[in-house]
């Protein structure tokens, strides 16, 4: 099943998006931990789109596609905002003392760690496309 939705670049959109993602994950049959992972990843990506891409301008929109299939979910964000700068993944240092921890930069790290596929690119028209996918673990799929 495919859902295509439009949201304004407003952080108030995030809870609605979270609800829709949880619902789609349930229909695929993900367990609660996987649902938490997917919800976090989509929320982080949408937060970045809203804040970094579209500058929290509620007159600008972004598109969210949710594709739920047997055993997997794919989420694609389409956005025409400012280009990604580096998008390098900063590895949080779990041994560093508190003072050395940075207060930002965890979003992309979470997404990279929690999703099975992550891809971002810009198409010919300058639309940024951020795509991520997660599969149910094989042993779970087989026991169905």
């Amino acid at each position, binding site marked *: 099943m495919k859902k295509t939705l439009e949201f304004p670049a407003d*952080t*108030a959109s*995030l*809870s609605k998006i*979270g609800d829709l993602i949880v619902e789609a994950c349930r229909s695929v049959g993900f367990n*609660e*931990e996987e*649902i*938490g992972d997917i*919800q*976090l990843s989509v*929320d*982080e990506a949408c*937060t970045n789109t*809203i*804040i970094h891409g579209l500058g929290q301008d509620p007159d600008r929109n972004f598109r969210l596609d949710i594709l739920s299939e047997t055993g997997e979910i794919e989420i694609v964000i389409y956005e025409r905002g400012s280009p990604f700068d580096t998008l390098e993944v900063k590895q*949080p*240092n*779990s*041994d560093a*003392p*508190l*003072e050395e*921890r940075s*207060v*930002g930069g*965890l*979003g992309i790290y*979470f997404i990279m*760690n*929690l999703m099975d596929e992550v891809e971002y690119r810009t198409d010919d028209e300058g639309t940024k496309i951020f795509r991520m996918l997660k599969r149910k673990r094989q042993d779970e799929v087989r026991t169905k």
Partner: protein
Amino acid sequence: MNITEAFQENVIIVSLDGRFDANTSDAVEQFLRVRISESKFQFVLDMANVPYISSAGLRVILAVVKELRRDNKGDLRIANLQKTVAKVFEISGLNNVLGIFKNPDSAIQSFTD
């Protein structure tokens, strides 16, 4: 996000109710910063009713804890994490440096130990 507070000796127990995300994190930060400006430095954050946290919430917690621990002024300690929320603390690595407690009572107690 609904924010309420209770007082026990010098400790302020701040209870959050709702999602702790990019839409609500500013409200939590402001609330805590007002109390800090009133020279309150010991906090317990009761997260029993927080079903969801993102990096925006972690950012506020980290910023406030850094501020409170500077010159050993105080601390913010966390209690009652739901399972999926606890996982976000774990993968961030912040559970190594934050005071995380099972319930508010043990968090409050830790300030007098």
